[in-house]
């Protein structure tokens, strides 16, 4: 194994892969959200955004391939870490009593990750791989169903929890820590997660409760 293989195979190497892919996915989520804010400006603006996005053709394809690779790396290495970590603690304590280092986000990383993976499959199947109707009609009709809307809200909660730990954790894994900025990085990570989750959640909430949504 060469030096690169040895590095990436080490514990810190795997955490670095998780951090870099995680931050890339975070950037994608932010870009996706930025595009989707066109929904708040009505059906015409949203359809125009979708058209402009699809006009990118080759660039969009390349982006999708990049995302696929990043996703696969994040999932594979994440699963590997999950299994290794379980093996490293074969017997749990009779009493578990966190000394308050853990957060809801940090404790549930593998599970919120799995939840997001399931959501991703459903989300791609219902939008990217489905072209029986224009995108705005698809979105309105699917999200107006209470079951689908609720599922989206649950998935967004998982996203928020995952990001609330993941953003800061990525920086820590990359060694970014400084007495002057630590507090800012930690609260910043949580703040960004709350902001992203809230803004995303407005879409299913509007679809569920506002009859004029994308009308």
């Amino acid at each position: 194994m060469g030096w690169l293989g040895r590095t990436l195979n080490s514990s810190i190497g795997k955490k670095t892969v998780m951090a870099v892919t995680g931050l890339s996915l975070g950037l994608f989520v932010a870009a996706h959200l930025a595009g989707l804010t066109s929904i708040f400006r009505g059906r015409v603006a949203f359809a125009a955004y979708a058209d402009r996005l699809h006009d990118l053709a080759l660039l969009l394809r390349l982006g999708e391939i990049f995302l696929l690779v990043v996703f696969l790396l994040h999932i594979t290495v994440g699963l590997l870490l999950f299994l290794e970590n379980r093996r490293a603690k074969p017997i749990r304590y009779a009493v578990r009593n966190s000394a308050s280092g853990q957060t809801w986000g940090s404790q549930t990383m593998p599970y919120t990750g799995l939840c997001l993976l399931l959501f991703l499959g459903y989300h791609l199947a219902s939008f990217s791989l489905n072209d029986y109707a224009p995108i705005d009609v698809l979105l309105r009709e699917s999200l107006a169903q209470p079951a689908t809307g609720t599922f989206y809200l649950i998935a967004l909660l998982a996203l928020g929890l995952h990001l609330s730990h993941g953003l800061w954790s990525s920086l820590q894994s990359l060694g970014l820590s400084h007495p002057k900025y630590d507090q800012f990085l930690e609260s910043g990570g949580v703040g960004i997660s709350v902001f992203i989750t809230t803004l995303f959640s407005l879409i299913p909430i509007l679809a569920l409760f506002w009859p004029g949504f994308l009308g």
Partner: protein
Amino acid sequence: MTINLTLRIWRQPGPDAPGAFRTYQSGPLSTDLSFLEMLDLLNERLSLAGEEPVAFDHDCGEGICGTCGAVVNGRPHGPVERTTLCQLHLRHFNDGDTLIIEPFRARAFRIEKDLVVDRSALERIIQAGGYVSVNTGSAPEANTIPVPQPTAEAAMSSAECIGCGACVAACPNGAAMLFTGAKVSQLALLPQGQPERTRRALDMLRAMDGLGFGNCGNERECEAACPKSISIRNIARLNREFLRASFFSEEE
């Protein structure tokens, strides 16, 4: 003042023997007793009754050697912050409390007997590079190598680690990153540590990976459990040191 406690203690005759909790009534205990003195009293009673005493590790009794340690009600070294088990006193408990006492648990820490665990995996990490190579001879003049006071303080904060293993015990993943981070940091911060800095980061991290410890999940349980409050900034520094050594040095 005296209190009565119910003690549920993990009893395991040997490394491969099955273990189980046994329950003991403490009888009246002075709140001035230390946790380990309480175990001594229990052991005296068990010995007189012809039973096997509870095996536990201890040495200095001052919280500076890192020998003692057990998990009390889910917390390594018990519920009081910045305190080793030997410095934990019964005044922190109430009459009628039940204490569940378990050994430090991690795959890298084999249970020898009852509450005694083999923490030599931590020594293996030190052996891989937690030292400086210097030619011995007469002691050098104290100020030959200038070290700024804040730097010396930072290195000392890392060097406070007593290697008790509470970080590994507290980590949900059984990782030894806080320990390794502190040991790499205390030398990386000082001029004396520079010549071996790169090699040290690579060797110590690889030794750690090979000993059955888990991976850091940045959950900060180690920092909260550490009797010396070693900061997770030491883990960030270890990450930096290792990535720098891997990607930006000629060492492999």
